[in-house]
């Protein structure tokens, strides 16, 4: 039975996650094999590994979007609210949907063209403000740059406010300011007790910001504190294993 490392004095911490002998096979291809590690509550846990190593598949397994075997258990003192930042936002660039419309679609059941419900407006304002998109809320999605779209994806993941945030390479497309904004936001979320599970490629940044790191290439190559496990040799082994 999985018992997450929860600080009893701080019950506002997000959920902990256990991956227990998780396997994933799609068709005849084995994507993940015997994945076992834990994500501690209220920490930033980075997932690294070479391309095609199964990082996104693992994240999507946690979202319940993959036919995995084994057990993925989420332990939380309260209800689990997940936020998910996908790798990219694919859409028709001529689609006449503004940033506001997009946020409305995320929050409410009624059609976006009827406007944002008053009850959701404060939280949408706050989310857009946190990612620096307030001034561009009337822009059509197709007119946003790649970095702005990435910020928008981050903003939608904050509605409703999550206690478990899953991010699939959110830095892709972000400029320096965007990267700084994201780091600040993540630190802020961490202080609020949000558990963050993050696929990332920048090992320097992982070392700086993550509490734990797990390297996946079909199986778990190593997992632990970045300062301890991210040695040059291990990184070399991980990224040349394929």
């Amino acid at each position, binding site marked *: 039975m*999985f018992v*997450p490392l*929860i600080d009893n004095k701080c019950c506002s911490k997000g959920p902990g996650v256990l991956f227990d002998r998780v396997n994933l096979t799609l068709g005849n291809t084995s994507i993940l094999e015997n994945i076992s590690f834990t994500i501690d509550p209220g920490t930033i846990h980075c997932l690294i590994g070479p391309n095609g190593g199964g990082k996104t598949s693992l994240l999507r*397994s*946690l*979202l*319940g*979007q*993959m*036919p*995995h*075997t084994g*057990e*993925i*258990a*989420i*332990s*939380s*003192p*309260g*209800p*689990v609210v997940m936020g998910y930042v996908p790798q990219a936002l694919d859409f028709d660039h001529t689609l006449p949907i503004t940033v506001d419309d997009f946020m409305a679609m995320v929050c409410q059941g009624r059609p976006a063209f009827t406007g944002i419900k008053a009850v959701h407006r404060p939280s949408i304002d706050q989310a857009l403000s946190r990612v620096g998109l307030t001034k561009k809320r009337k822009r059509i999605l197709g007119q946003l740059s790649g970095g702005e779209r990435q910020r928008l994806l981050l903003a939608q993941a904050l509605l409703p406010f999550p206690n478990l945030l899953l991010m699939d390479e959110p830095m892709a497309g972000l400029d320096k300011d965007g990267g700084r904004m994201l780091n600040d936001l993540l630190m802020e979320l961490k202080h609020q007790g949000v558990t963050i599970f993050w696929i990332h490629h920048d090992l320097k940044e992982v070392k700086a910001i993550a509490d734990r790191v797990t390297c996946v290439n079909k199986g778990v190559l190593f997992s632990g504190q970045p300062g301890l496990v991210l040695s040059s040799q291990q990184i070399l082994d991980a990224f040349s294993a394929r």
Partner: protein
Amino acid sequence: MEQQIVKPLSTRSEVICLAMMVVVVVMISGGVIAGRIRPNDEKVLKPHQLSAFRDLNSLEQGTFNDLYAAAMEINELHGTGDEEWPSLATLEDECMPPFVKDRVWKKRGRLAWEHRVPWSGTRHVALYLGVPRDAGSFGCFFLVMIHDHAGKRPGTETVEHPPCEIWHHDDVNVAFPEIVTDEALMVKGWKEVVAYKGEEEVQRLKGDGRS
């Protein structure tokens, strides 16, 4: 502390849902189709009746069909104007088979027609007897036209009966029936010809009948 297990993606519920929808659609469609199927209205022949399809040969079937169509015309002609029954000469002038003497008439045994209009109370009745002159597998046809002029006379508003009866006799030497009731005709050996119905018609259209 609450613990929840992430369920793997499964298409099981979708498959079950889809299968149930298919079953429901099939059941509804089946029900609708079953509700629209008409019961087989094939007539059960009585001992004094013949099946036009089964019991007549192909030439006799042709004569019967022509006579049946002619009966409708005769009924129309009688129902209009001075309510006279058309004579044989009129029918021949109208080129109405099987009364007109054409090649088909010759092929079907050269039926010699005799026409009588007996007095029958409130009813208008006309009789047409056709006896083949040629030897062969031809029988006699006897057309009984009955017209009540429903609505024109008191008490006839609800009278419903077929406007004609067609009877058949194998004996070509049969005499013109003096009494035209079912019983009298039966006693004389006449058989009422019943038109194609139900499965017989299907069988006929499929070309699987006897000639």
